[in-house]
């Protein structure tokens, strides 16, 4: 069953209980006045009263206690509104009686009981509503102890309620003790006034007013039911006298006690409430500064929040925040002061060399009014300034101004100091985050570059029955520009290239793709290697930025003539193994890297060579990542080790030679992850 269902059910229960109570009590009273024995047992009205109370208790429990959205003033408002409704009902009843005038009806005892019972029902309903609200206020700051005390209190009330109805006879002493305990517990509970602290000034006034009206309702009802029961009891005692129910008295006593306590506490809290509110606002402002980092888009917002919060916290008449930017320029965020005035004050402080204002430390509450008064037309008599530090470096100054001399207290100094510190931290965090974003973006870029670079390397090498070819390339985290490729020019001609683009990162990958384009377009024209390089240089000179170049070696293998023509443009000299003489040679022909000479003269700086190959000859193309790989002592792998490594396995296939070389390299450097690009292409003639 939902809350609404319970609320309806309980109100129905309460109504039924009250109706039974109403008729049974009237019947008993009627029988009594006529001197007849009543058919209805005397306990019926009393038990019905209990049921009425219990139903109402649950009714309000579900209506008020379970409603999470109610604020403190809402609760007081609920009490007030309930009071208003019941009072209006009661007053209209009075009006009816008044209109009836001198007719015999109002004087009749049964009518008196009728009115009394209605008023009692309304009164109890109001009391229980107030009780439920007070409960929520009391247990606002929940603690184990408080909850236990409250349970005990409710248990006592329930006991008294049952006790009243069944008239369990207890020893007088025990009974008095019970009442004293109840009163003490109620007193202890009534001391729980923490909620008052959370009210702001306006809410406190509202609360006082609502409580005052609540007193009025309580007084009115108490007076009404007491008077009416007085009148009835003068004629007969056989009616439900609420005073004979200790529960009713206790409940009334508790509700009025807590109301009085609340009223007094709120009243005494009024003068200090502005201070408390101020404190609260400081906390909120402080939080805003610290959170600005997560929510705001830029440093500017942090500055604005800092300025605003500071001004609000110390009631400054004017303020400015000067932020030093790069290149010694500074930006000024100001509040109620022109840039010119702010500058004037700063200059004044600087020229007069007033200590302890714009620098850190020292007593900030010092009276500076006579210094400030010497500014022509200056309105301000006190100033409070703090540097904003980021990583121990001052990035700006926060200055607050007041027209009163000695306008800043030590307390305020501390707050502003905290604000300034927090703003510094926020800005620092902000900058760190920005950096992290940049790094992340850079990493993402590198990832793309690496993918591009990988895709530029050939999936398959051009095969030929005359040779056996294998290649290997590994790139570093930073992405370099190692490139190798093969292209069949005709049925007996194949072009090979190995190149290394200077620089790293995306630009290197970009240049590498240009080199690939150049290779694939120029190689098709069956150019001789020198011509290839001259044209490649022409093509690249406009593409490469200042300081960038590409080293390359280009081979044209003619399998019909068994001849190799090649040109070396600044690339690592190719290692050649002659099977016939079992000797090796580095092909160190003259040649300048592509992009170094941007004129037509380039042809004068590169040579071409040609030689015949024999079966068993091995050609090892590589990039400087191989020869420059270092061991743990920092010594390079170098040409000699490369040569030795190849000599060891001259009878093996290209693939095996390549694997051997890479293994040697890894063994030498002591790691499988050399942080450089290293590439090799091995051709073995068959």
């Amino acid at each position, binding site marked *: 069953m939902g809350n609404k269902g319970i609320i309806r059910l309980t109100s129905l229960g309460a109504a039924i209980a009250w109706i039974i109570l109403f008729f049974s009590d009237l019947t008993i009273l009627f029988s009594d006045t006529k001197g007849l024995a009543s058919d209805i047992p005397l306990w019926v009205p009393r038990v019905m009263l209990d049921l009425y109370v219990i139903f109402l208790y649950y009714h309000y429990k579900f209506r008020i206690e379970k409603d999470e959205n109610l604020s403190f003033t809402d609760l007081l408002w609920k009490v007030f509104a309930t009071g208003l409704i019941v009072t209006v009902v009661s007053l209209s009843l009075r009006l009816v009686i008044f209109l009836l005038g001198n007719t015999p009806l109002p004087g009749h005892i049964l009518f008196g009981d009728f009115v009394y019972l209605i008023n009692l029902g309304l009164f109890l309903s109001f009391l229980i509503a107030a009780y439920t609200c007070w409960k929520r206020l009391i247990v606002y700051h929940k603690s184990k102890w408080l909850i236990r005390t409250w349970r005990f209190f409710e248990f006592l009330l329930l006991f008294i309620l049952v006790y009243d109805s069944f008239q369990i006879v207890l020893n007088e002493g025990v009974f008095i003790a019970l009442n004293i305990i109840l009163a003490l517990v109620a007193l202890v509970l009534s001391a729980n006034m923490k909620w008052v602290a959370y009210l702001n000034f306006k809410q406190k006034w509202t609360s006082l007013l609502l409580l005052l009206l609540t007193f009025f309702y309580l007084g009115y009802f108490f007076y009404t039911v007491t008077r009416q029961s007085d009148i009835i009891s003068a004629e007969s005692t056989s009616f439900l006298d609420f005073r004979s129910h200790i529960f009713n008295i206790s409940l009334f006593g508790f509700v009025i006690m807590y109301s009085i306590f609340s009223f007094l506490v709120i009243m005494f809290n009024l003068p200090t409430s502005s201070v408390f509110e101020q404190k609260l606002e400081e906390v909120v402002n402080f939080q805003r500064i610290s959170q600005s980092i997560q929510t705001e888009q830029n440093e500017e917002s942090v500055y604005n929040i800092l300025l605003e919060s500071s001004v609000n916290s110390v009631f400054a008449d004017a303020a400015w925040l000067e932020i030093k930017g790069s290149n010694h320029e500074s930006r000024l965020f100001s509040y109620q002061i022109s840039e010119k005035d702010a500058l004037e004050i700063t200059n004044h402080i600087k020229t007069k060399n007033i200590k302890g204002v714009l620098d850190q430390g020292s007593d900030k509450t010092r009276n500076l009014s006579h210094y400030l008064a010497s500014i022509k037309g200056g309105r301000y008599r006190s100033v409070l300034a703090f540097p904003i530090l980021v990583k121990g470096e001052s990035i700006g100054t926060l200055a607050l101004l007041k027209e009163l001399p000695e306008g800043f207290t030590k307390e305020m100094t501390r707050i502003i100091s905290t604000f300034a510190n927090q703003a510094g931290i926020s800005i620092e965090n902000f900058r760190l985050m920005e950096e992290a974003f940049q790094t992340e973006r850079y990493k993402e870029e590198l990832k793309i570059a690496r993918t591009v670079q990988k895709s530029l390397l050939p999936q398959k090498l051009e095969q030929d029955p005359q040779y056996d070819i294998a290649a290997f390339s590994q790139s570093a985290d930073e992405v370099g520009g190692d490139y190798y490729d093969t292209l069949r020019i005709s049925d007996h001609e194949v072009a090979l290239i190995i190149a290394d683009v200077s620089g790293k990162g995306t630009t290197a990958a970009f240049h590498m793709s240009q080199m690939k384009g150049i290779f694939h377009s120029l190689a098709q024209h069956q150019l001789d290697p020198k011509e290839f390089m001259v044209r490649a240089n022409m093509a690249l000179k406009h593409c490469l930025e200042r300081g960038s170049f590409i080293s390359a070696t280009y081979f044209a293998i003619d399998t019909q003539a068994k001849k190799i023509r090649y040109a070396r443009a*600044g*690339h690592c000299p190719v290692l050649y193994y002659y099977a016939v003489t079992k000797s090796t040679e580095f092909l160190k022909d003259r040649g*300048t890297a592509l992009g*170094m*000479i*941007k004129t037509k003269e380039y042809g004068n700086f590169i040579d071409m060579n040609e030689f015949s190959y024999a079966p068993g000859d091995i050609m090892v193309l590589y990039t400087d990542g191989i020869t420059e790989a270092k061991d743990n002592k920092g010594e390079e792998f170098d040409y000699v080790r490369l040569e030795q490594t190849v000599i060891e396995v001259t009878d093996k296939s290209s693939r095996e030679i390549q694997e051997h070389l890479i293994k040697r390299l890894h063994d030498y450097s002591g790691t499988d992850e050399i942080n450089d690009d290293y590439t090799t292409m091995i051709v073995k003639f068959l």
Partner: protein
Amino acid sequence: MVHIKRLQESGNDLIAIIGEIDASSSIELDLTIAKSVGEGFTKILVDCSALEYISSAGLGVFMSYIEEFKDKNIQMVLFGMKGKVANTFSILGLADLLHICTSKEEAKRLVDELSV
């Protein structure tokens, strides 16, 4: 890490490179040369005797000035290179484009000859 010193000697601007030139330290080398050019020196000597290593980025710096020097008639001579560093220059073909000597005296003589 690199340390670059500048010293003026009888109208020559002497730039001494101590340490290694890699991608990041090449910026410093670039700035130093640019400064020297900016100050109007037409005879620049580069002392490479304490240069332990030079990466392609560092070589790119020297390369990037070739045309500018030709246009402005500035002479630059490098001297005192260690074997490995010299090899790096020669493999790239930069040895043909730059003036490289073994000793400082030789370099001074060459720069004077070239300036005439």
